[in-house]
């Protein structure tokens, strides 16, 4: 019988979440920010599924499916905005968005 302690699963999830968070904070390229967001959402999915498997409830996987839906919608929207950004500024630098002009 495999028995994974919940602490280790949460440690893995928090490490992945921190990696993604640092990526969101530190990177300037919007594409990398979106990829880091994917890493963060995955970490949350690990936490949910780990908790669901430790307590033998299917709710964790239900929440993971909802996170999956959220990630799909977020990526579609984010990439559409990215395309618009590239057309408008010919660059993916997120610092060019801080002008808030027209």
């Amino acid at each position, binding site marked *: *019988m*495999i028995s*994974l302690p919940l602490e*280790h*699963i949460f440690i*893995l999830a928090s*490490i*992945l979440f921190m*990696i*993604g968070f*640092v*990526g969101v904070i*530190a990177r300037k*390229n919007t*594409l*990398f920010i979106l*990829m*880091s967001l*994917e*890493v963060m959402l*995955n970490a949350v*999915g*690990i936490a949910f*599924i*780990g908790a*669901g*498997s430790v307590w*033998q*409830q*299917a*709710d*964790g*996987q*239900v929440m*993971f*499916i*909802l996170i*999956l*839906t*959220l*990630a*799909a*919608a977020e*990526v*579609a*929207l984010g*990439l*559409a*905005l990215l*395309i*618009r950004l*590239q*057309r*408008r500024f*010919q*660059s*993916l*630098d997120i610092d060019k968005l801080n002008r808030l*002009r*027209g």
Partner: protein
Amino acid sequence: MNSNSVIPLEMLFYLAGFIAIVASLKVVLGKHAVHSLLYLIVSLLAVAVCFYFMGAPFAAGLEVIVYAGAILVLFVFAIMMFGLGQDEEKHAPNTPGLTIWFGPCALALALLFELIYIINNVEQHNVTAINHISPKQVGSLLYGPYLLAVEIASFLLLAGLVAGYHFAKPDGQEHCNKIAETGDKQ
């Protein structure tokens, strides 16, 4: 799991988690968008293996199909649409060829090793002893107590679809450029 030659399943889980962490680090620290995307795919596959060892094979399949199969294809599509920008070519590595995809290949081969190992050692490990949560339970829960959440998720997907179409369509782009130019002149 009595004999010493058998690797315990916990170690395989930790190996997959380690691969996920390394690949995610390479995603965040990478300079080239396509290379980071390769590492992101490896990271998602490693997370899927973690899901399998946590007793969620349905979620593992969804992770591979939806994340690595659909969402990452969207990323590839967007990158191919942009072409390689100036910042990409500036940071392009000097060593072309094998060295670029050696890293993702090594990590993915480690995952493949885990898969083959599990398939070969089904009897010793009694893989069914993992506390599986069947897709049937998940489905009955999704369309039972969580029905409202499913409906809201469908609204979210519809909103994403409409907004993606609206933002990415080329109509009015010249108009936007004109406004930007006049704004710059002012």
